[in-house]
């Protein structure tokens, strides 16, 4: 069989560039390391361009079923490229001020991106696992990047142990499924599982549970969320930015590949499991966030509750629901990026700005940044007129569509509880007197402009909600329609 590398050209490009930057770094003087940064940003830009230019219309399988290229994968990959690109731009000054401006940071980032690309396109259990591990190992290193910080090291250790446990669960689940079906190819597995799907098939249920647990680990859904607050809090904010955005989308993608692509006939089983995960995530995430005094921890718990909302879309088990979940994932990652972007914006050398009290009275000195926080917070709370509202609307609509109105009411009640801690941030920013007399913001122009654009887009894109949702629907249709 002739090897067609055309569809994986962008992945090869990212991999090659990561290696180039790694080697180039040997010959770069520290003061000229900006070249590595520029190359990384260019790489992501070019990769996004390559996906855009070769945008899939249907669904095709390459490399002996290892690699799927469909509209879904291209949409998610472009989003991952853009998110990672923004992460690098946002964090440049932050890592410079902390002596972390090393080429390894960019190389790890690029390998993580590569891992996500492989996951998103995986048509085979092994490819999926390979991508996931490439991503996870890069992320462990990125979290531990500030090696003289004990908090960061502890966070990385925790992340590594729990992450390895999650990966092991995934492998175990996969091996059970393999034992049952005799194949690692997801589309083959789908066919055999469809024939065997029955509630009393204990082995199949066991495999499903292990896979589900590991997926919950990776996206940080309760009760497998323990690592999230510690990692988000302990890691340097630049790494938190990375961990909290693009990998969430990739996690969503593998859920779609595994549960929808492979095990959709078990929907009657995983639906109830996901309901438990979603309700617990919304409950615990929102309640514990109220008690936080640290902004990064608060955003971590908020991320947990957002994952609960995203699961609502998936558990509906309809194309409409999956596309609502995708839309939620896209909107959330850009909101989360902005939320941690604010922490990066306000911090400077020797000052982290990650305590909630650091935000006090920001409106007095910097009304524009206060306004950006306002947009991010209301968008996360799901208050219109922001995209966050439409994200919540579409997932809640999806669960009502499958007659789970009680779940919609629960989601709504948790939204109200969640609104409280977002409002508290706005209260600190707008209503309280400033804590520090003179507050300097040393952020560079590119960070200011992009962060502003990030926030304003959450409102100005409102007339575009239609086309964006259309895009999500088509992306999901390319996955669901392939069977």
């Amino acid at each position, binding site marked *: 069989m002739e090897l067609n590398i055309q569809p994986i050209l962008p992945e090869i490009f990212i991999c090659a560039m990561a290696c180039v930057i790694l080697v180039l770094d040997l010959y770069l003087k520290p003061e000229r390391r900006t070249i590595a940064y520029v190359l990384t940003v260019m790489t992501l830009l070019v990769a996004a361009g390559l996906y855009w230019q070769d945008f899939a219309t249907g669904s095709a399988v390459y490399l002996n079923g290892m690699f799927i290229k469909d509209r879904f994968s291209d949409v998610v990959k472009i989003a991952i490229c853009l998110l990672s690109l923004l992460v690098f731009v946002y964090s440049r000054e932050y890592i410079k001020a902390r002596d972390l401006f090393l080429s390894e940071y960019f190389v790890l980032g690029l390998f993580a991106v590569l891992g996500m690309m492989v996951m998103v396109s995986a048509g085979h259990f092994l490819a999926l696992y390979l991508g996931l591990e490439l991503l996870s190992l890069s992320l462990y290193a990125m979290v531990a990047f500030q090696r003289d910080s004990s908090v960061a090291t502890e966070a990385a250790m925790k992340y590594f142990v729990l992450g390895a446990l999650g990966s092991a669960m995934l492998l175990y689940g996969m091996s059970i499924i393999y034992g049952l079906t005799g194949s690692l190819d997801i589309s083959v597995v789908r066919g055999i599982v469809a024939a065997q799907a029955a509630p009393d098939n204990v082995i199949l249920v066991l495999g499903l549970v292990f896979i589900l647990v590991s997926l919950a680990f990776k996206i940080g859904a309760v009760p497998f969320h323990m690592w999230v607050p510690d990692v988000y809090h302990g890691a340097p904010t630049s790494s938190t930015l990375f961990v909290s955005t693009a990998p969430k989308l990739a996690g969503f993608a593998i859920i779609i590949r595994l549960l929808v692509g492979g095990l959709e006939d078990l929907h009657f089983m995983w639906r109830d499991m996901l309901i438990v995960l979603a309700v617990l995530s919304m409950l615990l995430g929102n309640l514990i966030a109220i008690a936080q005094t640290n902004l990064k921890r608060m955003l971590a718990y908020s991320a947990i509750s957002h994952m609960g909302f995203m699961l609502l879309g998936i558990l509906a088990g309809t194309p409409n629901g999956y596309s609502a979940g995708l839309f939620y994932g896209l909107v959330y990652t850009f909101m989360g990026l902005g939320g941690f972007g604010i922490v990066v914006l306000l911090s400077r050398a020797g000052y982290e700005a990650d305590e909630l009290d650091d935000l006090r009275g920001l409106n007095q000195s910097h009304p524009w940044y206060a306004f950006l926080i306002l947009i991010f917070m209301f968008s996360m709370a799901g208050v*219109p007129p922001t995209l966050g509202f439409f994200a919540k609307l579409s997932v*809640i609509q999806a669960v009502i569509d499958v007659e789970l109105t009680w779940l919609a*009411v629960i989601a*709504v009640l948790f939204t109200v509880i969640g609104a409280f801690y977002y*409002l508290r941030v706005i209260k600190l920013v707008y209503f309280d007197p400033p804590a520090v007399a003179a507050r300097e913001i040393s952020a560079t122009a590119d960070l200011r402009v992009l962060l502003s654009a990030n926030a304003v887009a959450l409102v100005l894109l409102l007339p575009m*909600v239609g086309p964006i949702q*259309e895009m999500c629907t088509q992306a999901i249709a390319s996955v669901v329609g392939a069977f």
Partner: protein
Amino acid sequence: MFGGLLSWVIWLPILGGIIVLATGSDERAPLARKLSLAFSILTFLISIPLYTGFDTSTAAMQFGEKSIWVSTFSIYYHIGIDGISMPLIILTTFLTVVVVIAGWEVIKEKTAQYMAAFLIMEGLMVGVFSAIDAVLFYVFWEGMLIPMFLIIGIWGGANRIYATIKFFLYTLLGSLLMLVAFLYLYHQSGSFNILDFHALPLGMTAQTLLFIAFFTAFAVKVPMFPVHTWLPDAHVEAPTGGSVILAAIMLKMGGYGFLRFSLPILPDASHELATIVIALSLIAIVYIALVALVQQDMKKLIAYSSISHMGFVTLGFFIFSGQGIEGGMVQMISHGFISGALFLCVGVLYDRVHSREIASYGGVANTMPVFAAFMMLFAMANAGLPGTSGFVGEFLVILAAFKVNIWYAVLAGTTLVFGAAYTLWMYKRVIFGEVANDDVAALEDVSPREILFLSLLAAMVLIMGLWPYPFLDVMHATVDQLVTQVNTSKL
């Protein structure tokens, strides 16, 4: 998309708000003030054709605009007005001008943000009254909370943070249940068009549950007993302009919601549960009036008086007769003018003495005779004196109540006594008697700016009281249709 007149009334103030916001720091406050005044007057002027060009013979939506927004959920940018929403829109654009003038010298800090918040809120409120698509309605309805949250939180009194968060969470809870109701209706009908909801057949259980969801949203907003407790807090802490908009327009959205959603979409549940709503309304009218009687704080007194008067509105609506609904509508508009005016009067005193306590005043008539005259008129209107707008709505509602149950009318009628008691007693303690203290002795009478906004409102109160025909005429056809809808069973 934004070609029509109605769209301009929504988006011009929002655009104006953004421009005012861009003037930035307090050094340019005079510019911000002038721009805000210009935009609010301009918005008011372009909203007048909505009245003059209104066809009173039809109940159909007028000045309609429709274009697709989110095709996957069939959400449309669909707006239009009928006889119920048009008067409320004019009320909104009119009062925003008043509020901008009222905040002219009083707001010294972050003037641009203050003015911009009111302008943006104006656009969103007009949007609420004109949206025909449920999601669009919801976007405006919730969006409006944001500027009000900031207005109370930034420029409010000592306990403002507690008040504003309470206000936000109360209303958010109600609204989100309404959102679930919308989604359920969409699931049933395949459309977010409110007019399609009106025609949708629904079983009794579904109607009852939906009624409860809508009722939570609107009862919190009105507010009805027993979910009224956020209102006194919010009113007392809000700056004068915030209180005016809150009492005059935001409360009306609850009433508007009943007319737009509960009654026509859920006629059977409305009839079934009307007794409960009427009972809660009567409790509000009588009990809250008694609570108002013992208040020491002028703003609190007016806040409780608002709840009591809004009880009339819900009472009128749930009698399901043309007279009752028109009475409730007139009461809403009239209360918009009167409560706005009374809050402005308290604001005038507060700006001078910095106290809202009734006990801090006494004999104000000696030093502020012109002001005393104005406040006299508004106090009388609040008590429901014939010849003022306050009388018309109360009279219609009591008349309609008589036809259903004499006890409804008797209990509602007590407000004429209690209303007069708490309003005039407060007036007496503040305005009449000997000059109470040095603060009162040093008072200066109203400035030309204050005379301007007080006389604008006084004129409206008198016109509506003496010649209510133009107000009743525009809503006639729509109310007739509504009465038919609510009295036609869907079962």
